[in-house]
């Protein structure tokens, strides 16, 4: 079987973009991606992991979940891949696969429906995956301060909350940079607990 196993291959960098329906995940991934925004689907079998989806496909309810996919070539050694998918509990099994090897996550929050981002926040907190919350402010909405959002979502003081316009490449890129800075903070506090970083 043809498998290439090249140890010199560039590392695979993966960032997850989570949030409720309509929060702006597809828009965000499309805006920062260098390729045409691609959407693919995963088939979900209601029976979960133990079931063999081969049998009784017609009879069983099979749902699909959209998966946004984007790519950013940072330099000749580093390509960042983005996956966006809804953060509902019933999609967790998909998130499990996506989380493997992920650098971190951006949780997009729509202030009109803040509660929709709770499941994603819970998920990343429980798994110890570094994440930031990006508040996607839709036109004509009440503006919340990052601290108001932090309180409402119940985030710890260390989790950055940033503002973002998911439609803008620059805003999305700044958001990703904020995530990476946060991951750097996390890694420096875990390697040397004395190091303090005020940057968020």
């Amino acid at each position, binding site marked *: 079987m043809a498998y290439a196993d090249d140890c010199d291959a560039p590392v695979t960098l993966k960032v997850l973009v989570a949030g409720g329906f309509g929060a702006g995940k597809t828009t965000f991934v499309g805006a920062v991606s260098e390729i045409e925004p691609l959407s693919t689907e995963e088939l979900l079998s209601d029976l979960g992991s133990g079931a063999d989806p081969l049998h009784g496909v017609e009879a069983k309810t099979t749902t699909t979940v959209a998966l946004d*996919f984007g790519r*950013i070539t*940072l330099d000749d050694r580093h390509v960042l891949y983005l996956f966006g998918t809804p953060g509902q509990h019933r999609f967790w099994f998909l998130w499990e696969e996506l989380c493997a090897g992920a650098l971190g996550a951006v949780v997009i929050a729509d202030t009109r429906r803040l509660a929709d981002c709770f499941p994603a926040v819970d998920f990343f907190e429980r798994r110890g995956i570094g994440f930031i919350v990006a508040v996607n402010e839709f036109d004509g909405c009440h503006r919340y301060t990052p601290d108001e959002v932090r309180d409402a979502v119940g985030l710890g003081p260390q989790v950055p909350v940033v503002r973002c316009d998911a439609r803008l490449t620059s805003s999305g890129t*700044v958001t990703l940079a904020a995530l990476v800075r946060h991951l750097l903070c996390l*890694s420096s506090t875990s*390697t040397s607990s004395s190091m303090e970083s005020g940057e968020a």
Partner: protein
Amino acid sequence: MRPYTASGGRTRPGVALDLLSRMTATGVRPRVPLGAEHTLALRLCAGAAALTVAELAGQLRLPATVVKVLLSDLMEYGAVMAQAPRFPGGGSFAADDQSLLLAVLDGLRRRL
């Protein structure tokens, strides 16, 4: 077309492929006649260097699960090969790789 038709009803690939496995055509012509979706998948693999499974699925407009089956068939025919993703830290959370994160940050800043 029902998505399963492309893969002959199968949703489980013969080989494990990640959404970020990178696929390359080997140039070997399969000995068996290929169906339309297999042919299209092979053509996409041949047309670009190392496309990821996720990207192929997006271009084929088929569920990733189905595309993994198509690609694993093509691997068995020797027509494509897969390069598994190499996640930092060997698969688990890897934010402790500071120089890597700095390179990512630099790369992002250059785009601004």
